[in-house]
């Protein structure tokens, strides 16, 4: 009856080891998959996260927090439970959490994607008995195009805007997506500027050895100088704010998996939508689940019931993990159009 990981009102809890994974309230020992705000909350006594993600997590939970970084694949024993972290391919330092106790192995995927991304370590399938997977894009309408195609599309859009004398502004989640977009931009096209919220994480990426093109924080002066030529990377919250005015005539784009759907694109009232996602698409979810060889799949965060039904019809034992306090939080996230969410 007792399960290795169970959902409590503070988040996923391991009773055997007395620790939480991505707790949403302060706890004693928190294992953090990645530093997006819906997974990493401040106030816990101590944190365990991937070594590659320590500095980013510090930005989130504060300088005073006790954070232990562990290299990918290296195990830590905690109250007799063996915990190790493995790359999830979501953002820099993002990890899946492997929990082993008395021969039983569970893996919590956190957020993940299976396609290559040069700004973080590639997703690594981990064999386990029980796999707790996200399902943000758990519908077959969500299938991403190849990264190179998307990168070319963004650069082409930038060139077209230049021809029309317009500044390009791409909205992307400030941590992860923004740096990924940045890494694909061809700086020979024109000057690159970024919002302060994006800039904040750039040195951490560079320090981790990730190459990003030369890019300055946007100021009134450099914005004016580069009007009609520059590419600006900004967080989604910059849309519709006076901050955008300094760039003159802009063309606005949004980089998010939700942009796959025309209706969402139009609802966001942006000129362009790029379906660039840091989550696994439908095929990615299915292949990742297969690769774990898990006997039981627990689906959370997204189109849970769809994926559970699909897996069940395909001979897998699957169940949904209720996200306790938000009702159908999953769909709300889905309908947010990637607005404030870590997508």
């Amino acid at each position: 009856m007792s399960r290795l990981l169970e959902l409590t009102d503070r988040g996923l809890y391991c009773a055997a080891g007395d620790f939480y994974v991505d707790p949403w309230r302060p706890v004693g020992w928190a294992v953090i998959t990645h530093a997006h705000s819906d997974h990493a909350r401040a106030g816990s006594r101590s944190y365990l996260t991937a070594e590659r993600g320590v500095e980013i997590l510090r930005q989130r939970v504060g300088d005073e927090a006790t954070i232990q970084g562990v290299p990918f694949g290296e195990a830590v024993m905690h109250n007799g439970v063996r915990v190790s972290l493995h790359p999830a391919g979501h953002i820099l330092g993002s990890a899946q959490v492997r929990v082993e106790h008395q021969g039983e192995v569970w893996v919590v995927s956190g957020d993940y994607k299976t396609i290559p991304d040069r700004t973080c370590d590639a997703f690594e399938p981990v064999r386990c008995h029980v796999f707790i997977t996200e399902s943000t894009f758990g519908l077959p309408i969500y299938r991403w195009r190849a990264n190179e195609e998307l990168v070319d599309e963004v650069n082409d859009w930038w060139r077209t805007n230049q021809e029309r004398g317009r500044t390009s502004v791409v909205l992307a989640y400030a941590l992860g997506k923004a740096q990924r977009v940045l890494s694909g931009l061809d700086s020979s096209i024109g000057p690159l500027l970024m919002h302060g919220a994006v800039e904040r994480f750039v040195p951490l990426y560079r320090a981790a050895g990730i190459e990003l093109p030369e890019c300055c924080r946007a100021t009134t002066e450099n914005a004016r100088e580069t009007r009609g030529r520059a590419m600006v990377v900004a967080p989604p919250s910059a849309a519709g704010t006076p901050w955008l005015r300094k760039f003159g005539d802009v063309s606005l784009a949004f980089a998010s998996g939700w942009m796959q759907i025309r209706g969402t694109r139009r609802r966001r009232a942006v000129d362009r939508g790029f379906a660039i996602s840091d989550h696994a698409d439908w095929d990615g979810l299915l292949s990742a689940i297969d690769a774990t060889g898990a006997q039981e799949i627990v689906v959370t965060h997204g189109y849970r019931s769809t994926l559970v039904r699909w897996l069940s019809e395909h001979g897998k034992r699957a169940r949904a993990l209720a996200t306790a306090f938000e009702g159908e939080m999953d769909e709300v996230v889905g309908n947010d159009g990637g607005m404030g969410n870590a997508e």
Partner: protein
Amino acid sequence: MQLFARLFTDLDTTTRTVEKVQALERYFAAAPSRDAVWALYFLTGRRIKRAVNTRLLRDWLSAETGLPLWIIDESYDAGGDLAETLALLLPDHSADSTAASTDRTITAPGMLFSQEEMLEGYAGLQQAAEADQSADVSMPLHRLVEERIVPLTDLPVEAQRILVTRTWHQLDAAERFLWHKLIMGEFRVGVAHTLVARALANVAGVPPETMAHRLMGDWTPTAEDYQRLLSPSSWASDPGQPYPFFLAHPLAGDPQELGEVDEWQAEWKWDGIRAQLLRREDQVVLWSRGEDLLTDRFPEIAAVGAALPNGVVVDGEILAWRDERPLPFAALQTRIGRKNLSAAVLAAAPAMFMAYDLLELEGTDLRASTLIERRAKLEVLAAHLPAGLAVRLSPLVELPSWEALVELRRTARDRGVEGIMLKRRSSAYGVGRPKGEWWKWKVDPLTIDAVLIYAQPGHGRRASLYTDYTFGVWHEGELVPVAKAYSGLTDAEIRQVDAFIRRNTLARHGPVRIVRPELVFELHFEAIQPSTRHRSGVAVRFPRMNHWRQDKKPEEADTLATLRALAASLERGK
């Protein structure tokens, strides 16, 4: 097809008029006439009737992709647009090699070829089969429409399936989306007809008004007609061709800002069907603003046309009319849907043409002359008509001062009109809806406070959000549905309400969620009348959300008794 798909994407990804016109010009300049004329056909809102049953489309897609129907339906719920959802669900053949897609055809269900032999007389299938063999995957728009979409509707289901499946293999994702839209009779693109006319006019080298006028006429999607539309010289217009309608802007501010009161002419704003009545070469034609030919639906008005001299075009409003008062719009609606106009229908909703303006007299286009000149001629024309015809001259409203007008507007609802029209006396009869010449100043809407009780997901731009709401008011301790509304909230409010709905769903019936009755909205609507068709006993016209009353509790919402009293009082006022 690729050019057309490109045009669609260009139009779909910009909100800027200039860019839309440029994209259209690029397209019309580059596309062959036979294709361009079909593009024009669809861009000007003409449609081909739904050619396939969408249930069948889902079945075929399920067979093609191996996806069960339930996941197709869930995808549709999330995507909010069936044409797009189906396009996204299909595997990306264009990324495969041609060899791979040929393989796919060969491994298709074994029945395919024998079925095909049975149907071998059908050209579209043969062409589809030929195209399967060739490496060229792009198909001209006109062939797609003429050989695959137009004939589709009359084919046996199995032949439809073969044709649709084959076509999937020959199109890329963007093209498939449009293919679906076209066979479902749902193609729409966010571009005003005036912009299409402007772009085409630029390509042809004629004034935009000329092109708008030509497009209103009778043309078919053939290369010949396209060439005729594009001809740089003027051409004899066909007798059934109306003029583009000149439209008014809603007046948001104070009328005093319009300047001197004596520069303006005021009329009532009638709530009917805007139309042009044409009399040329002994023919009578009645065109609605929606470009529907209504001559047969309104014999009373056709009789008015027959009494006019040749070479006349009158702009006006079709109204259901009795005892010198308009009947509610619903009465007029009973006339539109019917092919057979029985004596009872004609008697229940007698129609009348309220004449506003004279656009053509003695075969001469009067649109460039001033409103007062046109009005004077219209009055002379009306005076020469025999008595007893179903026509009235739109009465001018005395306009001594702006203050007086404000008072008059208050009486509008009692008069059965929607508000007041303000037209600059010196105005020409233009094209489209330019600002500053004609204004419509509607009466303040009626309001009620009602509770959100059911919600459904929206479509298109509102895909996968709960945006279509049903509202209830209190009656004997229960909330009775009285109105459906889906407009009026900001995007931020929509997201909040959507989140509320998801967390407070009491039950589901298909796509409809029964919601915990907690949110109160102030609804606006234009009219309310007793109705036997609605459970509540009242029907409201043009309901929309004006305001989310976060300050109100559901108990404070209005009651059905209040609504019924309102309906009855307005009814009595008539």
